[in-house]
């Protein structure tokens, strides 16, 4: 079996959380500068990757930024409905990051 490195092996924090009531923001943070640069330079996480992975149209990806001071990549997605509305699934937006963990890092 091939042992493929994934984001979970490189990032120290992978989280999602409300950014206001209409958005969920995702933070991928690296403890080591080296890991951050490797993931950044290999383009493991790009706007296209995010939209494909989370099955959202590009217009719902409202922000995408490589945040150097924190060794972090950060992006934000507009919710289908405001947080806590009837039918909503994650009031805090805190469990939407899971699929990122399995992104392969070449």
């Amino acid at each position, binding site marked *: 079996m091939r042992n493929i490195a994934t984001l979970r092996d490189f990032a120290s924090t992978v989280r999602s959380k409300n950014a206001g009531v209409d958005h969920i923001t995702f933070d991928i943070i690296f403890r080591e500068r080296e890991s951050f640069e490797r993931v950044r330079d290999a383009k493991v996480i790009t706007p296209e990757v995010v939209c494909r992975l989370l*099955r959202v149209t590009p217009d719902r990806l409202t922000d995408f930024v490589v945040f150097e*001071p924190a060794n972090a990549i950060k992006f934000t997605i507009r919710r289908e409905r405001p947080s806590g509305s*009837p039918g909503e699934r994650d009031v805090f937006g805190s469990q939407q990051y899971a699929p990122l963990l399995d992104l392969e890092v070449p």
Partner: protein
Amino acid sequence: MAEITILCPTGHLGFTPLEKASFLAGVELKPDVIVADSGSCDIGPYPLGADSQASPEAWQRHDLEIMLLAARRLGVPMIVGSASDTGTDRGVEQYVRLIRDIAAQHGLAPFSLAAIYSELSREEVLSRMAAGARVRGLDGRADADRALIERTDRIVAVMDAQPIAAALRAGAEVVIAGRASDCALFAAPILNAGISEATAYYAGKLMECASFCCEPFMGKESIFGRVAEDDIRITALHPGQRCTPASLASHAMYERRDPFREHVLSGYVDMSQCRYEQLDAKTTRASGARWVPAAQPMAKLEGAGKVGERRLAIVGMRDPYMIANIDKAIAWARARLAERFGTPEEGGWQVFYHLYGRDGVMGPMDPSPPANPHELGIVVEALCSDAKRAEEICALAARNLFYARLPEVKGTAGAAALMADEVLAGKPGYEWTLNHVIPVASATELFRTRLLTIDGTTRKAA
């Protein structure tokens, strides 16, 4: 050079009780002010819309008591904002009552308290709109119109540091504020110390969630801030925590779209040039923020409106054929609902099937829902303006899965497992109707401050 020290014990007062040991360690350092935020939009629209608290009063009282006793003993101000989760007038009144009770219980000598109210009536907003104010939608929302305001049950405006700073200058030793930007609670005493907006709001942004800006991850532990012009030093107080450049920088981007800007009523802090350096094992220094004043100050409005009464039912499924065909079963159930109650639009009802085990957490955003989960836990959520009808709709939505007609069901005694054949009464459903801003002429015009004296000695004697 001006310097001020701040102790912050919790990022959401009352949400879970604060940890006392690290707070008392911070009190030993004799802070100039004790500050905590007590509200959030994260708890969803229900508390604001229904004007109820999300935290148990016993925990709120626990936190307020620890903070008040320390602040009075040190003789320093205490600032609490977004009182009782929502920052509505109810929340402010409740916290003033709790402060009064705690003062009486401990026989505290008289002190001055400022209550700052930030609730706005629908009529107030509508009359400003009639006078030409544009209530601009944030985050891609449309501007507010009359219909949107009318279906909003409760509105709060979000203050910046100005009303709080004014209350402190007027002599308030305890400030209980309505809805406020978290960072503003910290910025107010920093501004009064003669330090710039850039440093004041930036320090507030770094400190607002207490120990969340330190590592390893711990909630409800205290942190200590030493703030001078362009020189913010944050220290972790829990013995097992450190404040590091990484933990502080990563907190600066927490729960916000834009990691570089913190917006408040009077302007925004530009954090794009901020620098972080480790000073000692537990302390990190931050600097480099810039303040950009707003050409037109804009107050954020938060509002929530009721959607309907809400009922819930729990249904399990184990038959692999039913699980494989769950979408068809749901479509069948929905068709039966529409026969009886009309379409959702006609009948004024909504039903949601939350499929735990497949994509209950992420819904359509889930990239890999399993095709054949071993079992499914289904939460049926029904809404209707009439409570009895919501109950009936929910019961039928759940039982229709039990009776779902699919061609090859072998379990002809029931196509689903009812955890219990009952409908649970949920809290009414609300939605965030307002996430908007309204222009204001001054940073204080929407907010009302009441100064009163709390004398814990009189009631004890009585």
